[in-house]
């Protein structure tokens, strides 16, 4: 048998062996055995010395070809094995992707604060400032500056927690407006403000009454403010809180600090006005009170009612939240049951 035939035999045998190899170790072993210094190819090439000189290049090149072919076959098989092994490993690593993810622990803002935040953002965008004021107030600011002198019948509308004859827990956030009006420098521009915060009434707590609740009152004073401006502003509030499609309507009412005074209804967000439980079949829900600032209120704050005028409104975030989310007991807001608080974690 000549050397070429030997090489051809070797190649055939080796290729079949390589093809059947399944582990990386074995393939390395084959590589060392076949292509190593003591391997059969080297052996065969050593036998070339006995050939005539003119035959040597031909055989040499044939041998190199076989070596290259085998090297390629080994590399290919090795890659094949590794791909298979990786696939197997990944298969073993498979998990049940339907198991729940690890919860991210974050807290939830109180639902009333979410309502207040929404209202604040709306009014900041319309150029209002947010003004805070004391919760323990003077009768003077809470009532008298609001055109509610002592022994005015309308004081019955707001039962009050008094600390002393002159000091009380504020029943509304409008005293903040009185304080701000007194200080405002109209040469610097109009006054546009909202005052959010806690208020207190001498009430027994039940599902619909709370001795503590929240208010956001708004006030705009400038030279040419109209009731139409008030109507437009109120529509904005209703649409921001209860949805873009909402309409409002005004009904006459009475507040000592505004004249005219109106009660504001918003078209029912539940039934769209057809009538349902939420709106007591009327299609409308009473949501806030408003009016044009009473000239006495302006005068008392040192503002000339002949030159300036404005509007004011007041709304209850507690009531808004009750309506919007269907909360049927106002006490829920102040008991802080975690299961209650965490229901309102949706953002945006």
């Amino acid at each position, binding site marked *: 048998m000549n050397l070429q035939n030997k090489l051809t035999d070797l190649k055939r045998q080796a290729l079949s062996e390589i093809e059947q190899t399944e582990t990386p170790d074995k393939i390395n072993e084959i590589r060392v055995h076949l292509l190593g210094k003591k391997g059969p190819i080297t052996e065969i090439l050593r036998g070339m010395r006995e050939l005539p000189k003119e035959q040597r290049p031909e055989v040499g090149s044939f041998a190199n070809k076989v070596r290259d072919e085998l090297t390629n076959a080994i590399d290919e098989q090795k890659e094949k094995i590794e791909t298979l092994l990786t696939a197997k490993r990944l298969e073993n690593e498979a998990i049940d992707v339907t198991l729940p993810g690890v919860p991210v622990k974050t807290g939830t803002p109180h639902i009333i604060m979410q309502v207040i935040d929404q209202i604040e953002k709306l009014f*900041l965008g319309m150029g209002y400032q947010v003004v805070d004021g004391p*919760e323990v107030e003077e009768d003077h600011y809470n009532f008298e500056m609001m055109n509610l002198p002592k022994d005015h019948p309308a004081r019955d509308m707001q039962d009050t927690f008094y600390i002393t004859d002159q000091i009380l827990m504020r029943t509304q956030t409008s005293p903040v407006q009185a304080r701000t009006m007194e200080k405002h420098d109209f040469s610097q521009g109009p006054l546009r403000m909202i005052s959010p915060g806690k208020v207190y009434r001498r009430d027994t707590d039940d599902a619909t009454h709370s001795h*503590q609740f929240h208010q956001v009152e708004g006030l705009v004073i400038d030279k040419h403010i109209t009731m139409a401006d008030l109507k437009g502003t109120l529509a904005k509030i209703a649409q921001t809180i209860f949805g873009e499609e909402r309409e409002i309507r005004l009904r006459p009412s009475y507040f000592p600090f505004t004249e005219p005074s109106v009660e504001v209804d918003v078209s029912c967000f539940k039934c769209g006005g057809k009538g349902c439980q939420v709106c007591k079949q009327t299609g409308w829900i009473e949501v806030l009170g408003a009016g044009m600032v009473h000239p006495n209120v302006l005068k008392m704050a040192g503002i000339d009612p002949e030159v300036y005028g404005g509007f004011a409104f007041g709304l209850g975030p507690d009531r808004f939240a009750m309506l919007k989310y269907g909360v049927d007991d106002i006490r829920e807001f102040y008991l802080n049951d975690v299961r209650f608080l965490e229901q309102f974690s949706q953002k945006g």
Partner: protein
Amino acid sequence: MKVSTKWLQDYVDLKIDPAQLAEKIERTAVEVDEEYRLADGLKKIVVGYVQSKKPHPDSDHLNICQVDVGQEKSLQIICGAPNLEADRKVIVALPGSRIADNVKIKRSKMRGEVSEGMICSLQEIGFAESVVPKEFANGIYFLPNNAQPGDSVYSYLGMDEAIIDLDVTPNRADMLSMRGTATELAAIYDKPVHFSHPQVTETAAEKTSDLLQVTADSTLAPTYLIRIIKNVTLKASPLWLQKRLWNAGVRPINNVVDVTNYILLDYGQPLHSFDYDQIAGKHLNVRLAHDGETLQTLDEQERQLRPGKDIVIADQQGAAALAGTMGGLRTAVSDQTTTIALEAAVFDATRIRQTARRHKLHSEASTRFERGINQKTVAEALDAAAMLIAELGDGQLTKGILKAALAEPQDVTVKISLDKINQVLGTNLSVASVKDIFQRLGFQVTVAATDFTVVIPPSRWDISIPADLIEEVARIYGYDNLPATLPTSVLTPGHYTYQQRVIRQTRQLLESAGLDQAISYGLTNNKKAQRFMMEPSAVTELSFPMSSDRTTARMNLISGLLDDVAYNVARKVENVALYEEGRVFYRQADQVRPREVEHVAGALTGEFTPSTWHEPSNGIDFFTTKGIVEFLLKSLGISQACFVRGDSHEEMHPGRTADIYLGEQFIGFVGEVHPAVCQEYRIKRTYVFELDLQQIIEAPKQAELYHPISKYPAITRDVALAVDQTIENAAIINCFYDHGGKYLRSVQLFDVYQGKKMAANKKSLAYKLTYQAQDATLADEQVNQDFERVLGRLEAEFGAVVR
């Protein structure tokens, strides 16, 4: 005010569906609580004639009646009413009928006898207990004898009249009367009113002034009038009057009382009737109560009058009535009364209001005196009442009306321009349409160019300034017709103040740290208000609290949060992490108003993150809580806060509480609630913090600057130190930094060990020190030198031994 549309029809011609009328009133005048008929929901309730009654053989109180209900055959009905009489007309609920509260009546058997329906009381067909005449309170009702058997009962009882219940606002007291409401509706619908006016006939021989003398302080009673009616027989009022009363929610009593109530509803004028024969000295005087004066009022209460404050009507014996609120028992009209002295007056509103408040005597009358009454119809109302009492009680009026005081009602003139109206409303109304509105309201108007001079009659005493007129124009014109715009002046964008921004960031930070926001009550009890306080303070207390739970303004937030934790734990919610941001109220003893300070506090109990299939639970301890506080402070730019052991808080665990300082300033604390307090709230270990947010807002903040990151490698050294247990980590860390050399970048505690491998009273603290130079690669020798030196220092200062 319950307004019967039928009564209204007497005064103004309104052929309008009552529901629409109610809607119109609500949109134009005052709020409407309800629109209804007493007959609503009832079915098949008819007049019956009791032909006969005989006792039920098996009952000691039931009767078997044969009742004609206008059908061919009379019905047998079993009835247990004690006042049942034969030969009377009664209310019958036929089989298949529906009575009050949606109860259905069926043919039935009662102790063996068939009953084909039910003979009803007024309550059973839906009358409120409070309006049923006393004589029918405990039995069935008798219809008039001319009632036709088989007819529906509703019209006999006025139950078919539509009632509109008005919620009259304090400014619209003119609508607290039928005539006022009619006037308003006439304006709304642009219709005329036609009121009847009494024709007085004085048929008694005596002159009133010969029988009685009246005097009044006209500052207390600007108008005080008396008429006397003689020979009055007290009896039940006719049905037409009773119907008007009960439809207005008033119980019929007798003809005299009913007439005064009727006139009150009709004119809005409260009246009081005295038994003339009981008036001592035949002199009535309106004055203020004297020192020590008492009065037994109609409700049989002996009342201590407020000297110099309560207005009384006095006779020779002293106070005989509390003006405008309640009469006295001594001079009250009784069954024996024959001569009535009838009072119509106007009293000082403020004093009546105070009297009603102090004596808790709010009534229909006092409400009207407080809110004002039509000064123009005081005398007319008195005349109408006197004539009706005479008519219904077969009496006679004496000659003349006594006038202790009589204020002449004045018209009020208000000027306003068209421009002003359109400027305030944002409208474009014409002179003609504004003039028309004023005229519809019954105001006299004169127009010069675009200026109106408006004369307002005394029936609208709520109108006195231009703004009042603008409101009238707006509501009659219709709020729906106003345009909707937004204020148009130059817009400067609004923004939060720095303080408001920090407060809102604080909320967000604590939420991102995993705490839910709580809002607790600002008022609490005295004890809870004064716990967990951060500075000494006097309490701010309510003068008349509603309950013992809410008496005092809080001086800490933790108490409220612990209430919340307890509420959750009691409901099996074991894992609670809450924070609250709000005010506390500190007061110096000599101040009346407290200082309101923004605080933020947290309370945590149970597991911070509960165990899942994936991870074990993460419990809450001092260090999780402290970590939250550190995160908050750092995020708010407070990097220099220092935590020192705080064992002086009574309500806190003395060994597990840290006071937090910013320089010399105490800004809050964090720690474990004292087990005794936890036990009181029935909660397990709970960790809390409270911070003075105001101080944090005001504290100087570290400016955020860029620090170049060194390009050169850092070298680290780990060291474990054995020290006495009392040595605090903070002291060692400080020593490292103070004496660690200029290349020391950071010191990090990575292990704390105390246990078997340590001597008693010793603990091991392990630190990783990182050295780095900004401009060169450090050599080991440089670091070693510094490292050895600081270890020496630690040994000298704290006896720290390297392990």
